[in-house]
């Protein structure tokens, strides 16, 4: 399952990556802070993220891939396999987190992470993939649109 592209390797995440992956995931959550006060990152987030990443490694319904550049984790993608009981196909992979370190962007790392995860999903019989992110993230909108994704569901929020 190892794959080479340029100066980095895509591989499954391992226990010893937890610290580095957590840093990237935390950066992603902080990036969302930009879009709306409802994305204010809670103070305990660093520990919560570490737990979230560690648990992801243990779960069968979660795929966690990293882009490894000479031992440095420069990108991460996390996918949850969820069921959709009313519709065909019955299961979908949901990209909950995708982040690439700024200086490694524009080299196709994000695309490679997503296409690698799609390959794994297919091999597990999953034929639908989606991605969750704030609608104000125009860069993500453009990225997924270019990769052939389309919007299929709105999630509206209101403070009550």
């Amino acid at each position, binding site marked *: 399952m190892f794959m080479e592209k340029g100066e980095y390797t895509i591989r499954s995440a391992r226990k010893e990556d937890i610290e580095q992956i957590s840093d990237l995931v935390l*950066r992603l959550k*902080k*990036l969302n802070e*930009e879009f709306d006060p409802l994305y204010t990152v809670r103070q305990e987030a660093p520990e919560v993220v570490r737990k979230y990443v560690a648990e992801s490694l243990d779960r069968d319904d979660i795929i966690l891939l990293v882009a490894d550049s000479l031992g440095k984790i420069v990108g991460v993608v996390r996918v949850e396999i969820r069921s959709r009981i009313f519709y065909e196909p019955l299961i979908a992979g949901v990209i909950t987190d995708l982040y690439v*370190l*700024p*200086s490694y962007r*524009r080299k196709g790392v994000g695309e490679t992470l997503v296409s690698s995860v799609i390959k794994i999903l297919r091999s597990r019989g999953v034929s639908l993939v989606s991605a969750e992110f704030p609608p104000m*993230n125009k*860069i993500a909108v453009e990225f997924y649109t270019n990769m052939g994704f389309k919007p299929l569901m709105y999630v509206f929020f209101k403070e009550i």
Partner: protein
Amino acid sequence: MVSDTQRGAGPSSTDRWYMLSLRLHREYRGKIEIMPKIPIKSLDDFAIWYTPGVAEPSRAIAKSPDLSFSLTSRWNMVAVVTDGSRVLGLGNIGPEPSYPVMEGKALLFKYLGGVDAIPLPIRARDPEEFINIVKSVEPAFGGINLEDIESPKCFYILERLRKELSIPVWHDDQQGTATAILAGLINALKIVNKKISDVSITFIGAGASNIAAANIVIKHGAKPGNIVMVDSKGILHSERDDVDKLMFENPWKYDLAIKTNAEHRKGGIRDALRGADVVIAASRPGPGVIRKEWIEEMNKDPIVFALANPVPEIWPWEAREAGARVVATGRSDFPNQINNSLVFPSMFRGVLSVGAKAITDEMIIEFAETLARYAEKKGLREDYIIPTMEEWEVFIETALAVGIKAMELGINRITLTREELLNSIREQIAVPRAKYEALIRAGLIK
């Protein structure tokens, strides 16, 4: 022209300029006007210049719209457009208050470059609205000079308009200053005998002029990895906490954050200067923004451009005492003034004379090299790396160089030989001045 506050002079001298300026603006009710340039001997002549005769040039232009560059005054007309969102050091004061500044710019355009410039402050805060307005007025102008627009909006507006208009669009606060910086840097490097591809350059301040300057210096051969940029939050590097935020809010600064600073240096101004060959500061008024001790920690023969106005980030004599070989500022009362007034009048003179469709980065570099060469021919010294405003010939030489470059690039509407272009430029600069002097002699302007 009025120089900046004189060395050692207190605020009272600046206050005197303010009072005098207000009084004279009131007395003259503005500084420019529109004058006919064709002879009108009798009222019958209006049948030529207006109806019915004028229908014929209109028909010709309808068939071939580019004829508007040879049958009307469009070719020499520049709009000085602003939303008034960052006027001088006054901040976001809006369109009407920016008028005196735009009109002043128009005065310099005419006086230094023979360019007819129209002040055009517009009520458009939203960048899309601003862009649409400028696009709508394109048919009336041969060029657009954007002025005093806040960052990062100014980057977005310039980028869009450069792409979407087929006349030159220029943002003086970015490109004018960047061109002058590059010219000064080319010569400063010659003095210390270093190559642009080898030197490390620290930019202090990441506003309109320094972002444009960093990009043009990279285009001219500086290695992006050897550049370190510092803003109000410290050294810019690709893993700084706010870099993702910059990706959305200021993609131009973001771009430099990921391209520059290969060694991932972190810290403040002092850390950014350690070992650097060149510092280009366009940040906030000094003195004391850059300290003498920090200059001492730079590489051998440091080059210091301290461009904040009215007071540079470090006084030139302090920089020299600390070992700086070449020092430049933004002020006319010190040697080596990095001044965009050396750039925009002849940049536009050159492009308008050939009906250029754009001002490309190649043309900007050509201009800077010509400016640098001019000073070099006169003899470079540590206190003479860039021509002064008094050196008239430099306006003609730079205009000529940029006009020729536009023709080489094939983006000209009017093709002239070098000789014809030179004559046209000379005439365009000399005739308005002669007319103006005649009016003064006749006592019609006093």
